[in-house]
């Protein structure tokens, strides 16, 4: 078996002064040209993981192997070699583009600093990139404030792609955009992946969006991956109560017809010490005594699930139907 593009093993990172690590023994793998979706609520550690991968935070343990380079405690020279291949698009293009620079300068910046493109070819390359992200060539002279949100995000994508990266981290690339604009950006990202074979790591809390653009999904909770597998399996037949709860909380854009049982997490009470076993134990309606111990990884429907109960017993799911039909006053 060939080595994947990116392999993360047992990665750990803790913010100073916090009892529990924000990223706690995470394993991830991305192959060339594929997309992985990292999903979870805010505070689950997904962005922290992305920052560790990019070298913006220094992990306290574990390994990151990217194209054969070890990135944990890597030397500056390693980072210089790796950076052109590992790029990021941030959530809010309003704050991730320098307001004082014109579009052409923003996109040409990585080309100049990496030195991968000869100087006299830079102008052509910028034009090529604008064309790739479907922006008109007369936008080269524009400043970010003259662009719409969608156009700004296209500039950010063009900048990330300038150095022909093999992996781009996309941290909530559409959540700051309107839905009709976000749809076009997702479309563009998929087109680019088909054309150039760029691999993506999507970081998002939006499962419906992830369904459109990812091959595999890893669900993160309190620094740990609780379920990972093919996107279709994880999103259509989630086997960890946390993934199930995330899916059941999505508000469908069509009126609901069938009353299917929904998994609702129990309210979180503050001032409790973090659990040592399964991180969901205090919010999970199915929690048992053994859940105080770290759960083993079980393979269900092609997905790895960290839950003592997996797969979710259907009879216990249907038993949940009642509390959901609580009097809404009407």
């Amino acid at each position, binding site marked *: 078996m060939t080595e994947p593009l990116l392999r993360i093993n047992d990665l750990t990172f803790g913010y100073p002064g916090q009892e529990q690590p924000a990223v706690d023994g995470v394993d991830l793998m991305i192959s060339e040209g594929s997309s992985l979706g990292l999903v979870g609520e805010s505070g689950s550690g997904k962005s922290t993981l992305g920052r560790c991968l990019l070298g913006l935070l220094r992990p306290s343990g574990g390994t990151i192997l990217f194209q054969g380079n070890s990135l944990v405690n890597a030397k500056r020279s390693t980072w210089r070699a790796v950076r052109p291949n590992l790029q990021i698009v941030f959530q809010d293009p309003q704050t991730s583009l320098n307001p004082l620079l014109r579009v052409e300068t923003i996109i040409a910046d990585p080309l100049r600093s990496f030195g991968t493109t000869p100087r006299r070819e830079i102008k052509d390359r910028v034009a090529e990139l604008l064309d790739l992200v479907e922006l008109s060539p007369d936008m080269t002279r524009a400043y970010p404030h003259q662009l719409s949100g969608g156009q700004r995000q296209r500039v950010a994508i063009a900048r990330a792609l300038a150095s022909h990266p093999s992996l781009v981290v996309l941290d909530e690339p559409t959540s700051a955009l309107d839905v009709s604009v976000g749809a076009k950006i997702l479309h563009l990202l998929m087109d680019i992946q088909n054309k150039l074979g760029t691999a993506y790591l999507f970081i998002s809390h939006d499962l*419906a969006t992830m369904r459109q653009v990812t091959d595999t999904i890893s669900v993160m909770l309190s620094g740990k991956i609780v379920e990972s597998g093919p996107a279709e399996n994880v999103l259509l037949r989630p086997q960890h109560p946390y993934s199930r709860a995330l899916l059941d*909380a999505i508000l469908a854009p069509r009126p609901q017809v069938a009353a299917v049982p929904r998994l609702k997490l129990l309210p979180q009470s503050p001032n409790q010490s973090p659990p040592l076993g399964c991180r969901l134990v205090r919010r999970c309606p199915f929690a048992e005594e053994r859940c105080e111990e770290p759960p083993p990884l079980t393979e269900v429907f092609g997905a790895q699930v960290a839950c003592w109960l997996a797969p979710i017993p259907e009879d216990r799911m249907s038993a949940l139907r009642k509390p959901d039909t609580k009097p809404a006053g009407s």
Partner: protein
Amino acid sequence: MVETLESARTTDQLLTVEDLAVGLVNSETPAIIERIQLTVPRRTVIGVLGESGSGKTMMSLALLGLLSPELAVRSGRIRFEGNDISGRENRRALEALRGPGMAMVSQQPTDCLNPIMHVGTQIERLLRLHRGFSRRDAHEEAAEILTNFGFAQPKAVLGAYPHQLSGGMAQRAVLAMALACRPKLLIADEPTTGLDVTTASEVLDYMMQVIAESEASALVVTHDVGVVAKVTDFLVVMHAGHIVERGPTAEVLTQPSHPYTQGLLASVPTVAAKAELIGIPGQVPSITDYPPGCRFVDRCSFAESRCSTLPPDFAVGDDHVSRCWLHEGK
């Protein structure tokens, strides 16, 4: 069709808006929002759906008389329980309505809270001002209200400063505050934007429960199709300051008529299917170059010459109208 709307206007409606237009003060520029028709019956939840720049927030602020000084109502009548509240001469009447009549929660919950005052003090002040509670009773009532909004330790929240609350807690606290005076109409501007899916669905549940219990109506202003599908009875779709379609929520979402509504709904990703998301071509026109007739004309694939004249409301179903020439004579 026109008849049913006409007769509805004369019956006991909570709020009616007739031909409202808002534009810049002392300016020849076209009105930013115009021809706004809206009726809110008692005990009804109406959704206002639109993307950025659609004018949905401006409309809500106009209803409350809270437009910023550079904006003014150019024409139209707003009636609350039959009483005219538009125009300077009715300012007193409108002032008395804010709180017990109409209350609004804005998108940023922390913007609605005074950062240097305990959350409890802020809720208690409202209760003393609008509902005549004594200092001690107000404290008890505030704790009671927070309990209803799912706070396990209401007294701790009353003694907290806004920055000590999480996003979901702050949003629930603001909703609790807005509903503390038992308003007849709650205007909720993006009540769940920025919250995690699990928190968002909890907040909506609490909100709907309290609205139903107090027999109030609500205007839920949002860009999130999932939110309107979940909580609203009737839907108003806005684009570039015009209402382009309105009708019963279930019908509009399953049989959208206006090309904009169709495009918007086709942009919404769902978990169920990996579909080609289309998006809408172009962008919302800026207020300085609104086209003279239908403001969607430059983005619409059905555009023809008559679209440069404003289309009237055409009935496309029971209580369901679309403002598009395509539906003329159908």
